[in-house]
């Protein structure tokens, strides 16, 4: 059952081949069996079985949605009513959210079954899932390797088949990079396509939730539920949501693919280049035209991102002060002591680093030199994409510089760690949709192909990814021991 696509699961449930309770139990068993991967922070077994029962009643009454009865695991960044929502931090280890995020609400309405909350880098800050208060998550392809981050738990839950699908969030690559490193499909929608209400903010102008699935076909189904305008999120966009599954099979004849020369320079790992060019050849066979494009400002993406994201996070994380919720230090002697110890104890090293960087960048005398300048670069990068996307329909490139690295390898060198998002970060700065699909293996570790589209062209991206997945089977590979 755990190997089935979402469509197959839905059909199986509706034809009573198996019940949602049975299906849920299969996944719960697999979660327990593979706890060493550390993918979950919280397993919500009781809630899962209860919702599965309700889903079975819905199915019996033929009031089904495409996700009714299907087990999902949620990144622990989405607030879930009365369930621990830790954001991977000691700060929120004691926090049971008093409300549901809009995304969670939508899955509940669809009748999806929540299996639990997934491990992640603390407050989504990290690219290896090693900054989590709950410990590193292991990559099922090689348990000495990182799964990527920050949605590392999500990528592993899907790759190891511990859930039928998962949610992730992506601020600088946090869906696409772990998807690539774990061999699954991950879509970061256009900024504003999926509600951020109830999604604990890291960098508000960059954060976006999206599906993490086995295939583009699955991602289309999940995004259908996640997407849409939310009056509770002023930055969500009030545009109609297209039928993402309807256009999956459109032919790609005449599709214009742009390859930014900045992505395919000599700096790109040779094996990675070979694998990507093989993937692009598949597209050529499918009728696409390939064209080189240039985006001269891409190289500025990492420095700009590491000003803007920390600046926003420095304010976003101020609410964690030990006063109303979350970690509070023992016996504070005064207000300053309450703040410094609660925050000092509750936050991990990387989070503190980013709060400090952001605070610095926003300080009097530095604001213009850092924040304002970074915003200008952000505009230049958006313009680069805008220009390129007038010449071509989509842009393709690597997701990561290398396959998954070893656990512990980059933890002592933050800049080296930040560079693992070098191909994904610019897309967040521009607010564009992009997805990562499995495109082969290097040394038995999966790698991804990134497809970047224009604003609100998720349907087209999914169509392009799906067509590739019709002629390749990278996305169907399963790590050894997880079949």
């Amino acid at each position, binding site marked *: 059952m755990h190997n089935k696509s979402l469509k197959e699961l839905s059909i199986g449930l509706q034809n009573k081949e198996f019940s949602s309770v049975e299906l849920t139990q299969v996944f719960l068993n697999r979660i327990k069996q593979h706890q060493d991967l550390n993918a979950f922070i919280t397993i919500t077994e009781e809630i899962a079985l209860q919702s599965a029962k309700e889903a079975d009643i819905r199915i019996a009454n033929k009031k089904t949605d495409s996700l009714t009865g299907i087990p999902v695991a949620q990144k622990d960044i989405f607030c879930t009513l009365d369930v621990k929502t830790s954001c991977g931090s000691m700060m929120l280890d004691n926090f049971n959210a008093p409300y549901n995020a809009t995304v969670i609400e939508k899955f509940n309405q669809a009748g999806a079954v929540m299996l639990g909350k997934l491990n992640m880098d603390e407050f989504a800050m990290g690219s290896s899932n090693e900054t989590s208060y709950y410990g590193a998550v292991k990559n099922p392809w090689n348990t000495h390797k990182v799964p990527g981050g920050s949605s590392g738990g999500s990528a592993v839950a899907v790759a190891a088949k511990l859930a039928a699908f998962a949610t992730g969030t992506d601020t600088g690559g946090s869906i696409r990079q772990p998807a690539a490193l774990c061999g699954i499909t991950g879509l970061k929608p256009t900024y504003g396509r999926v509600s951020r209400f109830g999604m604990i903010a890291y960098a508000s102008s960059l954060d976006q939730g999206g599906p993490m699935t086995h295939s583009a076909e699955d991602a289309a189904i999940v995004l259908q539920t996640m997407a849409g305008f939310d009056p509770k999120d002023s930055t969500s966009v009030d545009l109609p949501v297209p039928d993402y599954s309807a256009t999956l099979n459109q032919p790609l004849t005449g599709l214009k693919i742009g390859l930014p020369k900045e992505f395919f320079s000599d700096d790109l790992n040779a094996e990675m280049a070979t694998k990507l060019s093989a993937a692009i050849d598949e597209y050529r066979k499918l009728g696409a035209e390939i064209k080189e494009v240039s985006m001269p400002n891409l190289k500025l993406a990492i420095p700009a991102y590491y000003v803007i994201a920390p600046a926003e996070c*420095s304010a976003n994380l101020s*609410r*964690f002060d030990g006063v109303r919720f979350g970690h509070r230090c023992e016996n504070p002697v005064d207000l300053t002591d309450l703040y410094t110890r609660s925050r000092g104890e509750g936050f991990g090293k990387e989070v503190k680093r980013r709060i400090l960087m952001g605070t610095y960048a926003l300080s009097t005398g530095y604001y213009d030199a850092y924040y304002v300048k970074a915003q200008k670069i952000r505009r230049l990068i958006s313009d680069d994409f805008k220009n390129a996307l007038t010449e071509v329909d989509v842009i393709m490139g690597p997701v990561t510089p290398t396959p998954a690295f070893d656990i512990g390898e980059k933890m002592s060198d933050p800049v080296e760690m930040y560079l693992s998002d070098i191909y994904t970060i610019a897309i967040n700065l521009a607010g564009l949709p992009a997805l990562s699909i499995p495109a082969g293996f290097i040394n038995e570790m999966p790698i991804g192909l990134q497809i970047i589209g224009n604003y609100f062209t998720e349907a087209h991206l999914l169509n392009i990814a799906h067509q590739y997945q019709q002629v390749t089977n990278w996305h169907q590979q399963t790590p050894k021991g997880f079949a």
Partner: protein
Amino acid sequence: MEWETVIGLEIHTQLATQSKIFSGASTAYGAEPNTQACAVDLGLPGVLPVLNEDAVRKAVIFGMAIEAHIAPYSIFARKNYFYPDLPKGYQISQMDHPIVGKGHLDIEVDGVTKRIGITRAHLEEDAGKSLHENFHGLTGIDLNRAGTPLLEIVSEPEMSSAKEAVTYMRKLHELVRYLGICDGNMQEGSFRCDANVSVRPKGQVEFGTRAEIKNINSFKFVEKAINHEIERQIELIENGGKVVQETRLYDSVKDETRSMRSKEEANDYRYFPDPDLLPVIIDEDFKAQIKANLPELPHAKKLRFKTDYQLDDESASILTSSRTLSDYFEAVVNASGSEAKLCANWITGDLSAALNKADLEITDSPISYERLAGLLTRITDNTISGKIAKQVFEELWQSSASADEIIAEKGLKQITDTGAIETIINKIIADNQDQVEQYRSGKDKVFAFFVGQVMKEMKGKANPAEVNKILKEKLQG
């Protein structure tokens, strides 16, 4: 040395919206602590602000009333600082692009009109309250007020005395209430003032170093605090000291200001645009819609009252100080058919005095405009004299009867029957021959005695003109 003072005011007005500026929680005052604070107001993880359109509308109304530039594009910024009653660790405010730009307000001090520039007015959210009483050395936090919409109105440093500052503050208070954008309740903190005060030698162009006095919540205290601060600064400089830029608190009990924090200790607020909120775009349609519903502004109304109703400056000022009062006045004029001046005199005189005494607003007046108009109609058509009218007014205040009912019931109708008046006058002349002699020998003052006697006899109901006329004839014999 002669000194001059420079004062600028920052006034926080609570906008009278139903719900908060970024959440749906109620803004009603006085609820149990933390019962009007929703997830957004509490700053829970994951929550997002959504701008209340009514707050924007009220800010624009204010901007129009001070003839200010309304920004077509304004943005919200985060003002970062830690305080337990500031749930998010930042306040959503406006910095570089406020919604209301330059405007002005005219004030009148000692008969001279002075135009005070308003630099800007911006929208922001209020913080909660820290409660230090009844917590045994601990502090309680009430977040009911957190997220209440504020319009911070910043004046130019153009006031040169505490008196001017208070006049400006009163005028602004009057205006925001007139516009219906703020309830003006100062006890509840709906209208609060920070004053920037500096002194400089008379004639010097550069400003002196200023001190900011925070959170003064009454007109009386603003005047006292500023005057105290002026004295303190002058004394300091004259004794060879220097004013330091700092924030000071006014202690109304000791009548003094004291230092709260210096510039060095001041927060670096690290303002930056709030990424959770979109820029506020105000288009011509939105402005036109507001303009169409804008009430006649006090200044324009005052001019109209002076020309249309021939009122003097003082009456026109008083009657246009609030919308309800001017509405009442115009309703009385229309309903009574009396001269506007008579209506104005009664409203600014007897009625205002009675309301003041009973501590009532015009909206709570026991005498409706119809009933007052009924009284004034009877003065105008000579049914009663002005003196009797005061008696009827008393009855109107006490009962719910109409003026006509009171006049009829108490038999207060003026006697214009010359025969009846003549009879009484004959009797009084006969009874007071001594006084008649005095009058006839040239003592004109005695005439008043006779009028008094007649009125007394006729219980004040005689038509005074008739009495005068007949008395004169009879006394001259």
